[in-house]
């Protein structure tokens, strides 16, 4: 197990560097520059900017400089938001995304797991149909529709909650609910499917035959197996949520990382793009590793050599 974790950890860094290199290439291929605007810059000013950022150097020198900085953990300063370092921007805006992301996912887990489990236990009941239909609806309604709808009801009809912007618990409710809806739906369906499969398996029959009470069968045996699909979904989902969800952040004007990531691409803010991409790729790989490790605990059949 330990050697598995070490092996996987060691691979994360070179993988992230490959991702950064590819991204760098793509950014360089994209037309336009961080300083191009509607108004043409005089040649002298363009030359000054190029000189300042080393853009007058050959590409391999630029790549070498970029890589040596990144290996030292320094992504440099944003070229758009001058005077702000990439590391500072990421650490400043991650908490916003992480807050709504984690809260949203917890809410989704709460709703999804309970609805999915109950639906599986009461298969073909009206609860099963009702909750699964609702889940289907949750999956089909994109959050750029759900968000404004919630705003309409809770901000303009009831005047209970603010329509947007960060601040206080009241401001969190709508974005968290918007975010949770689709994940709750997905988790509910995964849980239901997983549970249905597990409940029919031999070891559950064995557990029941042993005379274990239904609660123990459910929580000690069935749920563990039934959660494996949810777990494999959780890794990448949580990584994506932590890193920001562009649509919800835009609709509710939340200063999260997702919004900033998209803007950085539009701005051709190379250091910021590379910083966020590196951070995201490491995040996703770490979460996948955690998920893989957790499999071992949930499903005794999975063993790592």
């Amino acid at each position, binding site marked *: 197990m330990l050697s598995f974790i070490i092996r996987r950890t060691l691979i994360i860094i070179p993988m992230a560097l490959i991702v950064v290199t590819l991204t760098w290439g793509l950014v360089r291929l994209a037309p336009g520059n961080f300083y*191009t605007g509607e108004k043409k810059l005089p040649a002298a000013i363009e030359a*000054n900017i190029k000189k300042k950022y080393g853009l007058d150097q050959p590409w391999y020198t630029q790549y070498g400089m970029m890589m040596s900085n990144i290996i030292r953990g320094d992504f440099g300063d944003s070229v758009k938001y001058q005077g702000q370092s990439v590391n500072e921007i990421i650490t400043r805006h991650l908490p916003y995304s992480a807050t709504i992301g984690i809260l949203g996912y917890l809410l989704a887990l709460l709703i999804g797991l309970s609805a999915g489990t109950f639906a599986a236990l009461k298969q073909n009941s009206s609860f099963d149909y009702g909750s699964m239909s609702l889940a289907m609806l949750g999956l089909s309604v994109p959050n750029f529709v759900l968000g404004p709808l919630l705003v309409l009801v809770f901000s303009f009809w009831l005047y209970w909650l603010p329509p947007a912007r960060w601040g206080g618990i009241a401001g969190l409710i709508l974005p968290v609910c918007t975010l949770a809806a689709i994940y709750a739906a997905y988790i509910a369906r995964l849980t239901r499917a997983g549970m249905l499969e597990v409940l029919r398996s031999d070891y559950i029959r064995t557990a029941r035959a042993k005379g274990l009470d239904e609660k123990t069968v459910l929580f000690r045996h069935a749920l563990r197996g039934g959660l494996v699909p949810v777990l494999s979904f959780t890794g990448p989902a949580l990584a994506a949520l932590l890193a920001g969800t562009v649509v919800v952040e835009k609709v509710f004007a939340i200063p999260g990382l997702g919004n900033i990531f998209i803007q950085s691409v539009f701005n051709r803010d190379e250091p910021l793009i590379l910083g966020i991409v590196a951070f995201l790729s490491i995040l996703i790989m770490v979460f996948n590793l955690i998920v893989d490790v957790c499999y071992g605990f949930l499903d005794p059949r999975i063993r790592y050599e």
Partner: protein
Amino acid sequence: MENRTSSCNNRLLALFLLWTTALGLVGCSTSASSKYFGRTSPPSDNVLRYVTGSEPETLDPQLPDGQPEARIFMALYEGLVEYGPKDQQPIPALAKSWEISPKVDEFIFHLRQDAKWSDGKPITANDFVYSLRRGFSPETTSRTAGLGYAIKYSEDFNGEKVFIKKDGRFLTEADLEPTPAKPSTPFGPETEFRKFMQSPTRLTIYGDEKKRTKVLDGDEKLKALVQGAEFVPIEGKDIGVEAIDDYTLRITLKQSAPYFLGLFAHQFFRLVPQHAIEKHGKDWTRPENIVTNGPFKIKEYRPYDRLIVERDPNYWDAKNVHLDRIDFYPVEENSTILNLYKAGSIDAFLNHTVPSSWINEVRQYKDEYLDFPEAATAYYSMNTTKPPFDNVKVRRAFLLGLDREALSKFRKITQPLYGKVPQGSFPDYAKAAAKVGEEIRNEKGIAADAWEKRYKFDPETARKLLTEAGFPVVKNGDQFECPTFPVDRLAINFNTNENNKSVAEFLQAQWKRNLGVTVPLKTMEFKTYLPFFKSLQYEGFAQFLWSGDYMDPYTFLSLQYGKDNEGAAGFYDPKYDKLLDDANVELDAQKRYELMARAEEYLMEQLPMIPLTVNATNWMKKPYVKGMYPNPGTLLPWKFVYIERNPAKWDKDVANIMNVPDAQVDQQLADLVSTQKAAQK
């Protein structure tokens, strides 16, 4: 089981769709029934909550070129002059008065003696000298420095050029091409620096050896002249900015530039604090280090969330700053901004923000919605270097084949644009243009009504012109066809955006109907589009938006000036340049406008672009926000703004806001302007 679930889902989905439609309908009808758009009650504190649009790039006023930053800088920094609240014309700020040399190539500013930085340090003329030298310094990498290039040697300093010294003296332009020496007329105190400024313009050349060799290789005469010379780098001290004494500043231009005074209100010319910059380096704009000199100073800054500024007691005119605080919120999503406004969480928001789907709804709130012409225009440039648009007849055919009144009606918030300069922003220029138009009409002997209609929708003439250009337009049933027009090579190009797309589709349909030509549409992401269109990689049409940098028609006319101009049509015409040059050396304002109007008329004959619309301000403010006007650039001098708590005095019918007197604003403005008026006498 699967089937049952899915049919159940379908029914639910249908129900849901019905529900959302109902919500939409109810939403519209409830809001329209009240007098104001959403919640309307003044904030409990004396605060203005304003959405600025995108997050400011930096709080250093000399670096960015965007409007969201410009508005924030107007709260934090001040320069020699400020934009007037209604017309955006310069009003006194740190300079209480000024004098302009007869040739409009020198300015002397008399500064206030009671102005201070936010940390209490007095402001003197040396602060201006420092700020401008810093702004033009190549290390600062200001993107707006180009606006000030008319200041003597500033362009050379910014471009890292050098003076050429030979045999103990600096070479001048006269060494290259003998020109009669221009006599210097006295203006202000005669100083050593002024003698240098008034001496014949020195020759300059690139400091970088590679670039210099390239220039010299292409110019034998210069090469011979430079042989054995010494190169002296141009420094900040060489640019035309001089502190005559602590409170008198002189700025010298390399040529007459009658539009230049208005530029001094631009963010590039606002003061930056030498003491803070030297102490903190690039970190000087951090809230804990920043020193400002505007009516407000920073209280709290949380990037992407809020920038809160409070009244600065050290500001020289603090007693006339009515707001205690402004909360700037960076929000970019237009619907979100409207939601915040409707919920009463903000009091006003930036221009161009009401989405077209909301306009009919919002327009009913006559006390809040500001639809005024902007000093900003939309064009389609045509690539005149490639056929068929190298033929002026083709260009004209596409102009006349387009109903711009219909376009404006379709866009709901714009006015048709018939020339290069937007109508509505420059009333004096409009008068001059009418006069010149009449003269040209008489010269050419054209009937009055034909003259009036010369650029307006005329499909008949358009088809005739296209046929004359070699692309016959034929009638087929009730439709027109132009089978030989090479549409497969051409496109209407624009950057991806819902509005741009709807305009392009509208024009495509118009030209199809009127000329029988269906030009394909081509769209791309903004930063991809810019180089594509600026470097003339397109064929056909390219959408172009241009907003004025200063309040003078020249900011629009200069777009096609010079060889390497911004017009992105491949158009260059020395005759047009000559007309503009002649205008800019004319010192009488009205005559200058007339000469410019001639240039505009000439440009419209050459027609490198199809003017489409004059943009609209398109923003809202709550009726209790007063002293805030929809000026042509939405550049708001914040110290005039106040919150009116008495509903009887709230703004009504804002279409008339520019003409309704406001005693407080009018008095404040009159007091400010009085120092300059007194000096002029």
